[in-house]
């Protein structure tokens, strides 16, 4: 009897395992890096490749780059990763009193391996308390959690909820309905620790028809997910079960809010029977429990923007944000409409966030 030589005995020698030809139908060659392809590409896609991040959570390669070009770091590290540069370009440049850190790391939207998501969120909190919060008392923090396993999220909230700089729990908006009763223990824990729940779009956020073909489409209509989440939280009874819940909607826009409130109230008058735990007009929940960050603020006729605030029937719903260091950064000097009065601007820049997050007055604010 003859046997084919084993790998151990054949190392370095050419062997044929059988007395006939052989075809391997699955062999994986690799590039050293994506840069190997650049000589074979041309504009405009060559330009895209400067911003290549692979097929990750974000489904798009940014056509113009995701960060302010003046925030790029000489050592090649990602913008926003250097405290001194952030301090100079943001905190000191605009003489800021507080800056609420929201990161750009969302294990909360992982769609598998939820225990790993919990471990990543927990590690991130440890890392950034040491490396960011402790560096500057103007920083306020967001507790990163993995809501896929609510018990893990609650544990993380309990661990960090009493940290003096932690002001909110971060729940990125992905493709799940965050008002679902499955997640309610997270709101209970946030209420118990007197924390805001901040909702920022995750990179995997989808639209009404999934992922549209172009980045500009996605970036324009991702507000849909915020609109859906506002409705979902109210009608699934989060605020009736946990009346201390405060939700900060971050980077999702706000000019859609008047029509959303009108439509919700309109439907409530006819369909209340389905959600009897909702005891007031939905728009009243919005005004009491939600605040909306301003960036990226649109820039239509400035009179229209003032009317938008009037249509919200409250000047307390908006909180200023820059989104530093991203490409669509809103400058504190130039982004709010010229039609906004100094009183309204003060509320948007400071009072509304201070009251909502229940912050102590900053020493400078008394000036």
């Amino acid at each position: 009897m003859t046997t084919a030589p084993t790998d151990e005995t054949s190392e370095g020698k050419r062997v044929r395992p059988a007395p006939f030809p052989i075809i391997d139908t699955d062999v994986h060659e690799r590039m050293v890096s994506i840069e190997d392809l650049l000589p074979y590409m041309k504009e405009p896609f060559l330009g895209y490749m400067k911003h290549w991040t692979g097929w990750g959570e974000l489904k798009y390669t940014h056509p113009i780059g995701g960060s302010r070009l003046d925030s790029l770091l000489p050592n090649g590290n990602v913008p926003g990763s250097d405290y001194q540069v952030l301090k100079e370009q943001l905190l000191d440049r605009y003489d800021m009193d507080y800056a609420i850190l929201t990161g750009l790391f969302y294990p909360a939207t992982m769609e598998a391996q939820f225990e790993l998501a919990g471990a990543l969120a927990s590690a991130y909190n440890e890392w950034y308390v040491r490396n960011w919060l402790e560096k500057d008392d103007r920083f306020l923090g967001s507790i990163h959690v993995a809501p896929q396993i609510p018990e893990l999220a609650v544990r993380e909230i309990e661990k960090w909820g009493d940290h003096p700089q932690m002001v909110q729990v971060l729940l990125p908006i992905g493709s799940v309905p965050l008002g679902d009763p499955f997640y309610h223990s997270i709101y209970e824990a946030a209420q118990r620790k007197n924390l805001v729940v901040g909702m920022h779009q995750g990179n995997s956020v989808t639209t009404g028809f999934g992922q549209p073909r172009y980045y500009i489409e996605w970036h324009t209509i991702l507000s849909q997910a915020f609109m859906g989440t506002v409705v979902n939280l109210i009608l699934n009874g989060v605020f009736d079960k946990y009346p201390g819940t405060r939700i900060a909607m971050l980077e999702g826009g706000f000019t859609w809010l008047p029509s959303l409130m009108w439509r919700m109230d309109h439907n409530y008058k006819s369909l209340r029977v389905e959600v009897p735990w909702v005891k007031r007009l939905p728009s009243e929940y919005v005004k009491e429990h939600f605040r909306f960050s301003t960036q990226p603020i649109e820039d239509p006729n400035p009179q229209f923007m003032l009317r938008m605030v009037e249509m919200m029937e409250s000047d307390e719903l908006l909180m200023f944000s820059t989104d530093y260091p991203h490409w669509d950064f809103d400058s504190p000097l130039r982004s709010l409409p010229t039609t906004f009065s100094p009183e309204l601007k003060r509320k948007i820049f400071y009072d509304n966030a201070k009251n909502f997050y229940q912050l102590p007055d900053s020493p400078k604010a008394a000036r």
Partner: protein
Amino acid sequence: MRQIVCSSEALVPGQKMAVQVGKRSVVLVRMGNGDYSALMDTCPHQGAKLSDGELTGTTLPSGVGEYVYGKEAAVLRCPWHRWEFDVTSGQALFEDRRACVKHFEVTIEDGNVVIHY
């Protein structure tokens, strides 16, 4: 008014630099064809320094699904929101009468770049 800002060889095509012309902050660019041009160094949108942006080409109006790249090193793209300006005119590449950067005449005289303002 006129001011010499540098030698005509100071920039190679595709390069740009911030210069001070009188009291004005100006961005001087050398386009892909070798010509110089100059714009006010402030984006009319939110005030970023255009000299921190990119001197680039861009996609030209085209058919659906088609990409035609042109204006090589003749477009200045803001470092923040990436508004694009034609460096030969200061006009934005989209229609908005407010989106225009002041353009300065540039001449080459005796081997020097001169900005007229």
